[in-house]
């Protein structure tokens, strides 16, 4: 089920060519304010190439907010995000995949066309599309309109972007939500491959997502302590 063919290997070779060892994403005393309220303050971490960071915390602690902030989709209220390595002229968001709660799919387009659009938008080669669909077991559904997909299939199609377009940082918000056991295993394999290839993963999650040795960042502790 997990596709680890030539396309995938080419991707990883490409990745190693990016001085993967030097890549490092750091956050220093990061804070985010939404609607006049501080969601979190003083979040610091460092993730190097090949490492995964699991962001945990209770509901409303700001896990999703942190990922959106790293993706450049929210303004930073205080602190800073540091990014060494990779392409120097690009921001973190421009070198990251963000898979949030919304799948960014158009129900009127076919499964392949949905993925093909994001591949083209990100300037990646169209050859990777079929391999990406196969990696998430969507190859049988390629010509079906996305409107017919179940929640789990939609999620898998959103995750297929990770494979079709190569980017060193993966920002995943509850990536296992709506996935069955087989799909979770496939995703875990993709994540392990990504890490082995020198990529970085930051995932917001409530439970284990199948990566050994991932570090944990618990946020929202300061608010909890005040209670």
């Amino acid at each position, binding site marked *: 089920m997990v596709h680890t063919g030539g396309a995938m290997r080419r991707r990883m070779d490409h990745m190693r060519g990016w001085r993967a060892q030097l890549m490092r994403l750091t956050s220093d005393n990061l804070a985010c304010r939404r609607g006049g309220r501080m969601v979190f303050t003083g979040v610091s971490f460092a993730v190097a190439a090949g490492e995964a960071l699991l962001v945990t915390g209770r509901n409303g602690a700001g896990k999703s907010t942190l990922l959106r902030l790293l993706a450049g*989709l929210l303004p930073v209220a205080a602190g800073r995000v540091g990014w060494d390595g990779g392409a120097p002229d*690009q921001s973190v968001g421009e070198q990251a995949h963000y898979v949030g709660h919304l*799948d960014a799919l158009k129900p009127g387009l076919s499964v392949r066309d949905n993925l093909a*659009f994001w591949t083209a938008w990100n*300037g990646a080669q169209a050859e990777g599309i079929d391999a990406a669909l196969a990696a998430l077991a969507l190859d049988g559904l390629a010509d079906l309109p996305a409107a017919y997909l179940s929640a789990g299939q939609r999620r898998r199609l959103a995750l297929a972007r990770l494979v079709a377009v190569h980017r060193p940082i993966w920002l995943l918000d509850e990536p296992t939500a709506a996935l069955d056991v087989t799909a979770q295993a496939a995703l875990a394999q993709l994540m392990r491959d990504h890490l082995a290839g020198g990529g970085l993963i930051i995932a917001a999650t409530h439970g284990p997502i199948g990566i050994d040795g991932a570090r944990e960042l618990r946020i929202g502790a300061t608010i909890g302590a005040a209670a």
Partner: protein
Amino acid sequence: MSALAALYWRDLRLAVRAGGGAAIAALFFLIVVALVPFAVGPDLALLSRIGPAILWLGALLASLLTLDRLIAVDAEDGSLDLLMMTPMPLEAALAAKALAHWTSTCLPLVILSPVLALLLNVEFSAMPAIALTLAAGTPALTFIGLIGAALSVALRRGGVLLAVLVLPFTIPVLIFGVAAANAVIVGPAPFGPPFTILCALSLASAVIAPVAAAAAIRHGLE
């Protein structure tokens, strides 16, 4: 295929699909124009005199109708997040979306306008001129509407607010569009000056609107 071309074609395909806005806008245009004779009476002399004005008003309202969803759909399904996470400037992405909207919504109105002009008893000789003014002026409507669409997405309110914000800004387009069309039919002013100004309005709004719309979306980030 380049990224912007991919976005343009995606939006175009979505708009012309069933459920996309293009066909509905054309239908709306048809109905608005058909309503006017019922309101003012079937006086053919009057209708031919106000024909260009009716066509322009109909095109203005019909293009606004679908602008509401231009950015909102992408904001609601998460596509806007991903559109912003590339080195491609958001301004360029919005311009591509606006062009796709123009092709799917306004171009059919331009093509339909001679047929409707026939219903309004406008002279045959004036029909190409009316279509030409619509073709030259509707890009300005789309781009001005783009600002409104971005503001309503940033505010998370759409619909009527968009019309309230956008319509006052379209007055110059309406003035020169109708004036150019009328110049051909009744004169006495020449066609050239208002038509040239109309083109200038379209070009200027194509430059200003993507910048303002992208600023609105960035400042609306939350």
